[in-house]
């Protein structure tokens, strides 16, 4: 029985390390700021900003990859100038992530790329629902097999009852 618990303990530790690495990775590479946080912090390097494209604010040659619009958060909004490949996800009232740098001289956010809003909840729940029942089911089965072996051994039922 001890070997079952030791094996499962090892697997649990491996799963926890993997979960920690994944959460750290997403926190570092996919974390996004709100328009209000950008205006307050005035970040130097490239950042990801999450907001909604304000209605009637989109202008420029969107199909050519040049656009200007306001990105609204809950409290503040950010003037954005986009120059990059023709965007497929850019439209008014669309919630998206804008990747680029803040230009303090022009008081504008210079975007080079768009990304979709990350739905961590769906990914996390799919992995938990997909893998957790399998692990629990297997653990219960292995434990039961070990218990059955112990029961058979203790009751000496494995000995032949012929003769």
């Amino acid at each position, binding site marked *: 029985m001890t070997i079952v618990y030791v094996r499962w303990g090892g*697997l649990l530790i*491996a799963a926890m390390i993997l979960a920690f690495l994944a959460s750290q990775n997403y926190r570092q590479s996919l974390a996004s700021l709100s328009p209000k946080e950008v205006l307050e912090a005035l970040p130097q390097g490239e950042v990801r900003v999450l907001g909604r494209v304000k209605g009637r604010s989109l202008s420029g040659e969107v199909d050519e990859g040049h656009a200007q619009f306001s990105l609204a958060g809950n409290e503040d909004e950010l003037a954005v100038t986009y120059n990059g490949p023709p965007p497929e996800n850019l439209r008014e009232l669309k919630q998206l992530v804008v990747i680029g740098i803040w230009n303090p001289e022009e008081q504008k956010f210079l975007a080079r790329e768009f990304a*979709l809003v990350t739905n961590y909840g769906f990914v996390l729940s799919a992995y938990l629902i997909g893998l957790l029942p*399998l692990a629990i089911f297997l653990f219960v*089965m292995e434990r039961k097999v070990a218990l059955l072996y112990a029961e058979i051994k203790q009751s000496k039922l494995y000995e032949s009852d012929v003769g």
Partner: protein
Amino acid sequence: MIRKAIRRIQRYKGWFGGAAALCLIVGLYLGLLGSPPDYYQGEVVRIMYVHVPLAHTALFAYTVLFGGSAWYLWKRDPLVDNMCHAAAGLCALFTTLALFTGMIWGKPTWNTWWTWDARLTSFMVLLFILVGYLMLRTFIDEPEKEARYAAVIAIVGFVDLPIIHFSVEWWRTLHQPQSISMRGVSISSGMLVPLIAMSIGMSFLFSYMLMVRTQRLYLTNLLNAKKGRLLSQFHLSKAES
């Protein structure tokens, strides 16, 4: 012959478990950290690395059940019947999990949890067949009759497998067509490697679970049979005295 093969494979049970753990850890690492996000779906595409292997394994499990049932009807080997019983329970588990993870993937991509699409419906029919199979095994008391009827249900239910496989080609469906087929591979290598690692890992995991569950059913039957024999001996000796 198949009895010998089952016993021989059982000896390597630990290797199957180890291979499953290794492939799944590598697959999860690559799927969650190493693979790129999809252009249209973004990060949600990572659900593919758990949903698709679960669905593949469910179909693999049913194929094992079908093969075992056909063999049982031919040779009437109780060990193979035990394996079929174990495979059916596991197949039901994998099918249910594939359906649930598919629903979670469907919400952000199709904006609905469920739709009566040909692929989804035929997969749900598979679950109903398995539930019917397991109910039949629970409600019939006579072991030989139970095994025979269950084998017939499993063989008839196999009709659903080609329907599931070809549903995305035969009908216009919301479900995307196969990414890996005879025509080629339509996903990037960055996504293909974790998908293959997870699929192989799930297949090893199913094989390992099948061995453990078959062993469990065998030991339970053995214990019950021995207990029953001891009990009848006790009654006989009491009646004689």
